[in-house]
């Protein structure tokens, strides 16, 4: 277990999340992909807190885990909001197909 393997894990999660976000047609699945990306970032926080940063930055477990927990809280709030929007969309349009939700076009 070292910093590099943690970063590889995080990068893989991020890539999978991005792929899902850009390709899934279901709004909830896209939202889940987004969660994956957020969690990739959280893993980075924790990893840097545990192993220290590049160029000699010292590990700081307290600040790092505090930051990670804070981000988890924010993410939870954001997910609640996003799900509320998803429910509203479903009520209004009767479906959750992202491709069909294109009313933003100019």
């Amino acid at each position, binding site marked *: 277990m070292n910093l590099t393997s943690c970063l590889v894990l995080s990068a893989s999660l991020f890539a999978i999340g991005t792929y899902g*976000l850009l390709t899934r047609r279901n709004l909830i699945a896209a939202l889940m992909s987004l969660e994956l990306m957020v969690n990739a970032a959280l893993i980075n926080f924790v990893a840097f807190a545990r192993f220290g940063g590049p160029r000699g930055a010292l590990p700081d477990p307290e600040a790092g885990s505090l930051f990670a927990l804070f981000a988890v809280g924010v993410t939870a709030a954001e997910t609640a909001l996003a799900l509320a929007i998803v429910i509203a969309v479903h009520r209004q349009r009767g479906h959750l197909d992202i491709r069909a939700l294109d*009313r*933003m*076009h*100019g």
Partner: protein
Amino acid sequence: MGSADAGMDSLKLAAYGILLLPLLSFLINGLWLGKKSRTASAWLATLAMGATLILAVAVALGYRAEVLGHPEAFAFRSAVVWEHTWMAFPTGSGAFLAAEAGFHLDPISVMMVLVIAFISFLVHVYSMGYLRDAAASGRFFALLSFFSFAMLGLVVSGNLIQTFFFWELVGAASYLLIGFWYAKPAAVAAAKKAFILTRLADAFFLMGLLLVGYQAGGFDFAHLNHPATAAALDRTVGAGFLAFNLLTAGTLLIFMGAWGKSALFPFHVWLPDAMEGPTPVSSLIHSATMVVAGVFLTARLYPLFSAADITLLVVESAGAFTALFAAVIACTQTDLKRILAFSTLSQLGLMMMALGAGAPEGGEGFSSATGAASAAYSGSMFHIFTHAFFKCLLFLSAGAVIHAIHSNDIRKAGGLRKILPFTYAATLVAALALAGFWPLSGFFSKEEILHAALSNGHYGALFAGLATGGLTAFYMSRYFLLVFHGEYRGGEAPGARREGLLMTVPILILALPSAFAGWMGRGFFTEYVLPWPALAGQGAMAAAGDTLAGAGSWLPVAAGLLAVAGAGFGWYRYGLGKKTAGFPGREAPAWYRVIADKFYVDEVWLFLAKRVGGSWIAAPAAWIEVRIVNGAFDLASGFLRRLAFVQSLFHSGQVQWYMAVALLGLLLISGLGGYWIP
């Protein structure tokens, strides 16, 4: 001074009323009453004009008591009754170039106010009869009031800006009135012709007044007419072939405005066509408003003009030529009003010629002038005065004739003296006055003009004046004999509509000044209506009357004999019981047809407007506009539109596409950041 102040206060009140009453009548009739009731709007306009006439008389009396009675208090017999600063332009030196709106009185403006109010009131009364059956007479009366207002504002103006303002209002009002029968294409064409031609001339006037006003440092007539202003302007500016004398150029440009408004050759073409308007309008345009504005402006700036020899020469030549030219054409026309229109042109030419003949031949301009210069000026104003009455009368009688026989054509008239006895008598008076028969009004004013030309040594002008007098007598006798004598040539006898009271009374009232204004007004004009240097006692200037008493006692006799000869020839040609005397048609000699076709000046204008203006200037300009200017804009906007189309492809509305683009952008930025941020 207590009573004098009170006098000035009442004068001020009357002066406000003179401008406000016609304006109010215009607004009320134009915005509201005109469409409600024809009768009420006619009465309102006529009563307002009657009140204006009373106020004008009050102003004239007040002027005589307050201004002429206190010559020491009013320089040049000129009084500012009221004045408000209207526009002020800061100039570089911190001073202001201000334009005032005001009410100025001096002998010529008092004379004009009286004449305009009097004529306009009678024309209003006459119109009540003439247009009784016209559907849109509410609009007519509104415009008639507006026309009077504009002309009154013009003559009492104390500076060039106000003059220009009202000058344009007069032009707009005449446009609207000439085109009053707007369903008639000829009327619309005549209105446009009048407006466009005078506007063309006014463009030069505007240039001239800006040039002169800016260079002289003010627009006030008092300032512009000062000898020091003329001296300061008399300098050459520019260089090479663009060098010009500021005074000459400025006064010539201003005179161009008068040239167009007073319809001197070659701008005269609009005036004969302007008779497409209702006859009362023609009588107003030809007598007291519109056309005399040009002569009035020239007289207003006379001291400035007379400092520029070339300008005076142009004024004189244009006037003399127009006087003769129009008189010759008038001898051949067959339309009642057209004959009168050409006689107006001819008389306007005389007035202008008189002004131009003010400076003595070979003299050092106006400053060295003698009383003859005053005589020229006062003669010109005198002729405006007398001409207004008899020309208005002639048009009103022509209207009565047209009203009776429903035709403008003298070939279809004849023998009307039995049907229209009052009109017959009044026309006789007016025709004799116009022809210059003693002791009617036209004789005196013409004599003063001829005297001035003779004393100043302007023999060309003298000849033009005398010849015009003879021709005038001829064509007026032709007109008179063909319309009122002989037998009726128009088919079935007229008589359904005899002379109505509302039309006859103004005609008869006008016959009085047409007959007597000459020897009644003479003293006033020779003594009071003088150019300013004469009033200032500059040089050897004397009152005009002193000159007239002197040389050339043969002149009135010669002028009178010429008039008799002209009228006699007319009698020989068209009287003597000849029933259908002389209407040459196709078989007429070529020279006669050239004259009858008005020397083809209209065709020259048409050629200029259509070929030169249209094909050579407007069409290439339109090509440049459409192809090059618009083309450049089309190219630029087309490019932008294609760019925008490419951009709009990104705005598909697909959230995932947006996110992909954002991600791509992020990658690009972070990639570039890797290079540029170490």
